[in-house]
């Protein structure tokens, strides 16, 4: 129990009762917030996991292709072929609000819309493995960006859920029980005072009656 450092007055009692109402209301609200965030988080995490599996498989496939291309092509040709890319990706970032957590969303913009523009080299001097790998990376790029969104959202939500959880627990196990105990203490003190006043009055009355 918290140290009793309060004066047992009616004013203090009213203040504490108000505090209790607020704490209970806050506790309920935060609990609801946490439950909803958890629901959203679990859907996101499932999505995140599926996306990651897909992206990792595609990148590993592409990497194998790059290794083979490196083995087949002279490194000078390979270096030159990817030196000046034709394509350029930029992102428009906007934010979506999930239970007061701002998670980023991306709108992808490319310099050209031609899908063939991902090959900035002549096919004569390079291996076909390079084409396959680049094609595979190009196909997975939207999912990669989606994965980035998803991972950041999961990171932010996990952080917020942890914070909310701590607040809910603090209210439930510390603030509300302490306030209840203080209210009990003040009520008992006031009742005790009332009783002693009544007894004193009776005693005085009795004394007055005996003297007369």
């Amino acid at each position: 129990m918290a140290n009793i450092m309060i004066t047992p007055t009616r004013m203090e009692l009213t203040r504490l009762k108000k505090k209790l109402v607020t704490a209970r209301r806050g506790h309920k609200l935060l609990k609801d917030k946490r439950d909803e965030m958890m629901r959203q988080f679990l859907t996101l995490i499932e999505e995140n996991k599926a996306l990651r599996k897909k992206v990792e498989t595609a990148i590993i496939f592409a990497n194998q292709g790059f290794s083979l291309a490196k083995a087949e092509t002279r490194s000078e040709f390979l270096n030159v072929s990817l030196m000046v890319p034709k394509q350029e990706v930029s992102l428009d970032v906007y934010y979506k609000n999930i239970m007061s957590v701002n998670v980023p969303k991306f709108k992808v913009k490319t310099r050209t819309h031609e899908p063939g523009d991902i090959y900035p080299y002549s096919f004569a001097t390079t291996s076909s493995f390079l084409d396959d790998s680049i094609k595979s990376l190009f196909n997975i790029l939207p999912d990669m960006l989606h994965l980035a969104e998803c991972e950041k959202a999961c990171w932010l939500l996990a952080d917020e859920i942890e914070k909310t959880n701590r607040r809910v627990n603090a209210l439930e196990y510390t603030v509300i029980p302490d306030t209840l105990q203080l209210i009990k203490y003040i009520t008992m003190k006031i009742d005790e005072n009332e009783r002693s006043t009544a007894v004193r009055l009776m005693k005085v009355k009795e004394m007055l009656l005996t003297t007369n």
Partner: protein
Amino acid sequence: MRRVAVIGDKDSIYGFSALGLDIYPISNNLEGERELKKIILKNSYAVIYITEALAQNLKGHIDIFQKENEVSIVPIPGLFGNNGIGMKNVVGFVKKAVGTELDLNANN
């Protein structure tokens, strides 16, 4: 307009330049740390992909950057040194939020 960066050893990431992403090839962890800090300070990137081998070594820095910046740092498998840190991170999120590990494969 923000852009996308890829950082890691050269052989693992050079293919991404064809797609129009900015690549930052590095040869060791120290250089990786320096380069990552530089990229973050530029503040012009929304997403940074980092090879798993490098992500493992810079884990502490990445956690701080994720917390303090709006940038999303995503580990991807490279040519070598893959350690599944990407998947481990996902499990870490669940552990942080739920307080325990969940078997997400249970209904798959």
